[in-house]
């Protein structure tokens, strides 16, 4: 067996540290809603109300890939937002529609959408087109969602998942159609591209803190991230001093 190298050992240490921080912080009793949540997601509630009041549809783009496209697992965020959102808009005049560009993601999303209708005891209202695969690559995923935006009965667009910068065209079309848009992508190039759009944008790690619904999960995760961030910063400074003084090789 080949010995673990420095990076392997460090990775293992980080992994264990994260687990310890999660476990310790889950033991700490914390008052609810004390931390400020990312602003970008706050608009989702407004869009849900708009959808109900105006009888218009809400479009949810989940991006391309559950298989760790890029370096994240952002699709879990998208699915989480989709679940919260779907549970609330089941009985709207115009149901919400979600789009994904990956097979596994489309199947899981399908189960979530159907589950929302089932939980609301309204399985008969469910239609397969409420959850669609848009295409199987970045461009065809983009191509699949663009024509849907052109319909006049959309209350808003929520893009949460692994999106490429090319998806900026989606935000541009939404802007042209006066459709309010919320974008959250864990990929840096996409964040840079969407920064110029009108859309409410979740930057950096805020993407992993979907502040929708009652936010219990988001609050706890923000708490864990604050701790981890502080520990990492202290660790980095200490490690830099030790490296400089030659204590660590």
């Amino acid at each position, binding site marked *: 067996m080949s010995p673990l190298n420095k990076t392997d050992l*460090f990775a293992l240490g980080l992994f264990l540290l994260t687990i310890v921080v999660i476990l310790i912080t889950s033991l700490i009793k914390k008052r609810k809603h004390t931390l400020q949540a990312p602003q970008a997601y706050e608009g989702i509630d407004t869009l849900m109300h708009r959808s109900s009041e105006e009888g218009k549809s809400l479009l949810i783009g989940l991006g391309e890939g559950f*298989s760790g496209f890029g370096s994240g697992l952002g699709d879990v965020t998208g699915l989480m937002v989709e679940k919260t959102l779907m549970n609330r808009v089941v009985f709207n005049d115009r149901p919400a529609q979600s789009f994904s560009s990956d097979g596994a993601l489309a199947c899981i999303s399908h189960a979530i959408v159907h589950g929302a209708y089932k939980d609301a005891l309204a399985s008969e209202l469910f239609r397969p087109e409420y959850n669609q695969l848009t*295409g199987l690559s970045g*461009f*065809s995923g983009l*191509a699949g969602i663009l024509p849907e935006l052109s319909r006049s009965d959309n209350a808003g667009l929520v893009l949460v998942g692994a999106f490429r910068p090319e998806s900026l065209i989606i935000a541009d079309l939404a802007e042209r159609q006066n459709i309010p848009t919320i974008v959250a992508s864990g990929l840096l190039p996409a964040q840079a591209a969407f920064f110029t759009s009108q859309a409410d944008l979740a930057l950096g790690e805020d993407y992993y803190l979907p502040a929708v619904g009652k936010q219990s999960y988001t609050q706890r995760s923000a708490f864990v991230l604050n701790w981890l*961030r502080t520990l990492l910063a202290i660790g980095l400074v200490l490690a830099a001093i030790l490296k400089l003084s030659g204590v660590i090789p």
Partner: protein
Amino acid sequence: MPKLDLLLMFAGVVLSLIVFSYLLGDKLFFGISMYLLVGVTTGYAAVVLLKRVLLPMLVMPLMDLPTIPGLLALIPLLLSLLLVWSLFKKSSKIATLPLNILTGILLATAIFGIVRGTLAPQLLSIVDAFDPKLVVKGNLPNWTAIFEAFMMLLGVISVLFFFHHRNKRDKVYESPRPWMEGIKVVGQMFIGITFGAVFVGLFSTGLIALIASLERIIDFVRLWL
């Protein structure tokens, strides 16, 4: 030029023009071109999946039953059948089994990739910049390397703290930790610089593609002149 190539070239020019009709607010032809792309890529992907993945990895081993590969292929076959069953029996708990297993495995792969592929190397490279071999050059301090190492440390920490979640009751300008707000401003600056550079990189790529598209159109027009 053969007639078929000419036809394909013409199709390419028409499709490019249709895409650019988006700028004029066209929805019909733009929509048609988008669905054409979705249809072609989906059809091609379906063929590749069937012929290059499912046939050699699932069907062929089953032909060799009862060998070990054949027996091993029975598990994905069973899971695949359950997945298909989930189409018809949406409420069935057993039908969600393959999706749950798939989710677990994909999550584990992503977590491993994040820790081993991103976090550990990125953090180590920050610390490695303080290596005495780099910051000292012939018994004299290498100020460029020292500056770069400190900038990296400051920049990364400030970007990390830009996302620090403050308490709801804390106001930005009356913050009990003004140093934190200061760090956040530095973090904003670094994020802005990064976004600007990435944006220009993407824009340059787009510009090259735009030139290629225009060239396609000009080449076709030249053929007839």
